[in-house]
């Protein structure tokens, strides 16, 4: 893999009052790759996502974007770089239909008058290319199932053609079948060359779609595994801290992964 990572974090630290939420955390992700971020509650996963999305910037550390040093101080900076985030609460307008939500804040219009036909056409195209099955793009999202809502939220985040997609526990509220649809969608998006950081508690999901899994424990890196060679037990013991140090389980391309 000759390309530099799209996004690389080095030595990220973040303190909230007396709590050291993140200590010297490293993470990187390449185009067309899914990196899972695992860890117990309070391990710092959400804090790390907030650092990347600009909601709450890091105290110390370096962020590189396509090999260049960048600053992410505000959500706007992250958007401008091409980082899209789908939060767990999805932040959708339940009363608006799918088209309305997809284009919220970036409506297509002519002198202020909405071009509904064009927006609907693009929405249908997007749903089709992502193989998202929704009864009708003119349905209010309140009437969609949890899985469909999640899919709409993800496709909305793709509207600005981002390069990195952050997904915060996307399968947490989903049933078995909906989860499998969503994992299909994540693979679909990855195959289009997107770099995806997936926060998940679910080892099954991680094994299914992630290429690598980075484990956080008590705000520190506690292992980086190649999903194809690691067992679920190894990840779990790294998450819970049963295995003190995960050095033994690191991938072979170690030097490259942690430069």
């Amino acid at each position, binding site marked *: 893999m000759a390309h530099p990572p799209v996004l690389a974090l080095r030595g990220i630290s973040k303190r909230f009052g007396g709590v050291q939420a993140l200590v010297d955390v490293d993470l990187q992700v390449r185009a067309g790759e899914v990196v899972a971020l695992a860890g117990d509650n309070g391990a710092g996963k959400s804090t790390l996502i907030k650092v990347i999305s600009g909601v709450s910037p890091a105290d110390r550390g370096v962020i590189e974007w396509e090999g260049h040093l960048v600053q992410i101080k505000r959500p706007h900076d992250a958007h401008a770089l091409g980082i899209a985030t789908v939060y767990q609460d999805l932040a959708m*307008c339940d*009363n608006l239909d799918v088209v309305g939500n997809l284009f*919220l804040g970036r409506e297509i219009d002519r002198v202020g008058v909405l071009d509904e*036909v064009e927006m*609907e056409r693009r929405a249908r195209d997007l749903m089709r290319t992502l193989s998202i099955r929704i009864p009708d793009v003119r349905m209010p999202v309140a*009437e969609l199932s949890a899985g469909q809502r999640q899919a709409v939220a993800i496709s909305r985040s793709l509207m600005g053609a981002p390069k990195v997609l952050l997904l915060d526990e996307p399968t947490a509220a989903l049933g078995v079948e909906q989860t499998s649809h969503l994992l299909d969608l994540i693979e679909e998006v990855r195959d289009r060359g997107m770099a995806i950081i997936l926060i998940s508690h679910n080892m099954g999901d991680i094994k299914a779609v992630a290429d690598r899994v980075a484990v956080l424990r008590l705000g520190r890196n506690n292992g980086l595994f190649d999903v194809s060679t690691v067992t679920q037990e190894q990840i779990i013991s790294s998450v819970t801290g049963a295995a003190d140090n995960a050095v033994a389980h690191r991938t072979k391309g170690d030097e490259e992964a942690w430069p």
Partner: protein
Amino acid sequence: MTGGGPHRGGGPAAPGGGAERVAPGRAPRTRGWSGTLRDYAVELRGSVRDGERGPLLVVAGLIVIWCLFQALDDKFLSPRNLSNLSVDIVGTGLVAVGIVFVLLIREIDLSVGSVSGLAGAVFAVLNVNEGMPEWLAVVVAIAAGMAVGAFHGFFFAWLGVPAFVVTLAGLLIWNGLTLYLLGASGTINIDEEGLVASLTSRHFSDDFAAYAVAALGTAGYFLAARRKRARHRAAGMPYRPPVEVWVRTGVLAVLAFTAAYTLNRFQGLPLALLIFLVVLVVSDYVLRRTRYGRRVYALGGGVEAARRAGISVMRVRVAMFMVSGTLAAIGGLFVASGLTSASPTTARAAGSGMLLINAIAAAVIGGTSLFGGRGSPWSVLLGVLVIQSVASGMGLLGVEDAVQFMITGGVLLAAVAADALSRRAAARRGRP
């Protein structure tokens, strides 16, 4: 494409329009009469089952009310009474349109009754007592309403005081100011031949006027629907079957021409009704078809979602209270016009909240949700017809005020309860 034959999914782009919302699990509409009718039947059953109050239910209620009062007093459905009704709904209706804007962002404006009274007093004092030209006094009165709305918006959006408290304080403040302005002179009679008086007294007695408006409205609807259909078809997307466009246009034509015929049996098309219809068309267009309107609905659907989408929440909030204040002032001028006076008595009545209650009831009965994000200005037309029909009928029957209060309050409570129930049903349906 998703299916074989062309079908149109969820009605027009109305993001929250009550009856236009898609009933879950309904079959895609197909071409042809039988298919369309069957689908409508399915849809109707679905909407009733899910506790969704479509305009159809309100229309049914209105018909029942009209039949009831007609049975009790055969003057009720006379052209004269219906024509008066069409003028009487305008003051309350305009105030209610303002309320719709505020309800859409999930807030409330309790001051509209007082603000409408203030506008009437400002106009009367400036025009009659101070000798200001009528048009200028009208402009100042409306601007006063807008300024009051901006004042409320400032306290709510900037300082974060709950809108309900800000406008409750406003209710008292502006009513006090009205009484203060009128204090020196008591009742002020406005010029019965003047501009403001003509707002409610002027009728286009030529039969042609009412029919022309009916024809224009029907043709406008038909052409817009046709154009939309053509654009959908050109883009290769599902569209309404032509039968549906024809049926809808036909129903609209029957209603419009019946109304025009009835009005022509008395004094012709009232100016007030024409202005009301124009306000409805314009505000519906702004809310449903413009980028700006989309922001309003978005705010009602989820403040956080709107904020993350880059919408300036504060600006939209202030603007909505300004719209509500402005329309309350315009409505107030119609009320003053109907009475041809501004007096401390009517100001006190405005402060008592009758107009406020009627306006909120009109908006909610028509299908605008108190919980934000759902509804449209057109809902006001149906709602205010219901409210004013009840008031007019009770007036004809000589029902005393005390009973009227209780009935109006009861109607409002019933409408709000229905709104809450439909919201619960929708929540149940949405997240299985």
